[in-house]
């Protein structure tokens, strides 16, 4: 079923819940992985994903097809993830931690991380990237998204995204070479 048909169902009070179930079933895994790569820990991902879908539910009545539905949902998920990290940073302000430290702690403590040493070092290198570069890197490599799609989600020009991605790859390679 096309997204536009599902949205028509959503706008009918009798089929609203059914339509939303279709949307959640269709996008939950893709959005899960997108959020997981930003916040790292599974437990935090679950919280952020729940909040993301609640926001989608609240905002879907006003959705006007200025962008694709999944682009709009990705944008909500991205903003929720970054806000979550910011709030975590504020909470651990007294300990002087930054986002990178928090994410590395999450990686070490996450019982659902099952990588070997090389994979762990690679993930560490990715977490050391500035947040924008890390987002672009993950979306391009892991999620195999087009620059045009990333541009819509992050509301950044394609040229700037290409530059960010180029810098990110260089930095990750450098970090891995040092290891």
């Amino acid at each position: 079923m096309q997204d536009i048909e599902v949205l028509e169902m959503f706008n009918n009070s009798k089929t609203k819940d059914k339509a939303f179930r279709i949307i959640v079933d269709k996008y939950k895994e893709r959005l899960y992985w997108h959020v997981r790569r930003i916040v790292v820990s599974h437990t935090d991902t679950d919280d952020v994903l729940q909040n993301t879908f609640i926001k989608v539910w609240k905002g879907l009545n006003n959705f006007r097809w200025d962008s694709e539905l999944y682009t709009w949902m990705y944008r909500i998920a991205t903003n929720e993830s970054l806000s979550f990290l910011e709030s975590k940073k504020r909470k651990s302000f007294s300990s002087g931690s930054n986002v990178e430290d928090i994410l590395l702690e999450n990686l070490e403590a996450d019982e659902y991380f099952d990588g070997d040493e090389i994979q762990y070092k690679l993930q560490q290198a990715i977490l050391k990237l500035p947040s924008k570069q890390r987002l672009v890197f993950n979306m391009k490599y892991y999620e195999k998204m087009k620059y045009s799609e990333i541009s819509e989600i992050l509301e950044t020009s394609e040229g700037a995204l290409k530059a960010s991605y180029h810098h990110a790859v260089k930095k990750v390679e450098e970090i891995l070479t040092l290891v």
Partner: protein
Amino acid sequence: MEKNINKKEESFKIPEGYFNDFTDRIMDNIEKENKKTSLKDIKPMFKTVFWLAASFVIVFGMGKLVFSLAVDPSQKIQNTNQSVYVDNVKQTESTDYFFDDIDMSDEEIIDYLSEQDINQEKLVANLK
């Protein structure tokens, strides 16, 4: 490097069956959220009604106070006199009512009383 990253993707795990009940959990949370939202909608309504009622009482009270201060004091006195007058009229009417059946002048009454054998001692004894 891409090969390494693809390998890395497999290092993140998800609890078994995590996605099976995910949609149900979301729908439950949405239901809870809707209840919270409807309560939030009602609370401001109660507040508005309360403040409207309180404002009305204050405005009404102030209005009454200002009105009572603005009335001319002579009108008040006039009103009081009117009520005294009304009381007097009532009393007069009631007195006239007692004497309506007695067709005697004051002199006749005095004569009548002097013909009676009434002295001061008798009157005092009757008062006791």
